[in-house]
């Protein structure tokens, strides 16, 4: 499946915007993603090991929270988008 990485998180994927990953569920895709790019883990998961509330994940155009969350099955050709809250600020 395809994973879309937003600009704020690209420093953690070596600036890759789109990744192709083998996965049967959203959870597998995420596991594969953070195993390839371990620095992403802290961005996506809180200390409790759960997905952070300000990082939304969409399978195609649907929020995975309205599907089966990380257990949502994925098919070849599906796109997973990571969409974190962005303030739009430029302050250092």
């Amino acid at each position, binding site marked *: 499946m395809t994973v879309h990485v937003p600009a704020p998180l690209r420093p953690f994927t070596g600036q890759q915007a789109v990744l192709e990953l083998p996965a049967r569920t959203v959870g597998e895709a995420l596991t594969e993603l953070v195993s390839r790019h371990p620095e992403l883990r802290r961005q996506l998961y809180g200390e409790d090991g759960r997905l952070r509330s300000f990082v*939304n994940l969409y399978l195609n*155009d649907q929020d995975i929270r309205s599907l089966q969350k990380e257990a949502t099955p994925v098919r070849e050709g599906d796109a997973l988008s990571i969409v974190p809250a*962005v303030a739009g600020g*430029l*302050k*250092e």
Partner: protein
Amino acid sequence: MAVPAGRLPPGPPLSNDEILRYSRHLLMPEVALEGQQRLKAARVLCVGAGGLGSPVMLYLAAAGVGTLGLVDFDVVDYTNLQRQVIHATPDVGRRKLESAAEKLRALNPYVGLRPFEARLGSDNALDIVSQFDLVVDGTDNFATRYLVNDACVLTGRPNVYGSIFRFDGQASVFATRDGPCYRCLYPEPPPPGLVPSCAEGGVLGILPGLVGLIQATEVVKLVLGRGEPLAGRLLLVDALGMQFRELKIPKNPECPICGPHPTITALQDYEAFCGVRGEEAPAGVAVPEIQVEELKRRLDAGDDLLVVDVREPHEYQICNLGGLLLPLGDLPRRVHELDSSREIVVHCRSGPRSAKAVAFLRQVGFRKVRNLAGGIAAWAERVDRRMPRY
């Protein structure tokens, strides 16, 4: 779909001058005389006269929105000109409100301007927002975004949202009667410092133009009551790939403010909610500092002092103090390269990133480490005036 057009009375009649000015609108059956009168009757508040606010205000004024409110307390800075097209070079140092109002009056004298020289806060937001029919969110920080959202939900005003980061943008319409609000999309903000906003900052100058005009388009559609509003949908703009993608935003039945059982019924303390107060340095950690003049004196005296630059390589290229380049994000991995027995001065552009670095280094046992107050920007200001600033 609830749109404010339904609430707006048909507008006042147009003068012959206005009919001529808006003739390309009047020729379209989707606008026509009635739609143009609706635009004239509409009162639109734009929060922020910056990157997003510039195109929004210019185009809404040109389109004939009758009353435009502007909230901003800032002054035009030289670095704004790359994207804030309502301001021009001679405006640097002027109040943004004054600069914007001058351009808008020149563009369309039929627009009534309502400037608010203020920082939108919990004390004034409901009063200001309730004087308008809809609100354009052109802000640049989470605290004001949640404030604008909550004020819109509480007063029943649609919130036309846009945000930008580097090459990426987002747009949506929140707080329509049946649609979701910003809290449905993001119930809470990220803690400061987690999203790499500083080291990875910057924005392509045209991007606020693209996203701002999506916002302006949504405003005009809402006023006219035409088309499909962007409510319940998040539009993602990727300027590098030049792709527009659309995601569904379901209304959250447990939303604390727009759900059926709201727990938020009044405005809050948004700076506390967003953790802004600890933003300058990691929460509660005051780090020891050195002033640029003292650093200059010490370096000139040939003291054994290691200067560590925690900015990014592309920033180092613009200007540097000849320090060891060690970007903040790499610090934990490369900390062993530093000798903790030496005296270390850490700097970034203006101070916050290096404060985090100093706090981190002290945490892992460095004792003789200080933050350069004001960063290389202060050095360029007070020590070496020939150094470029950015």
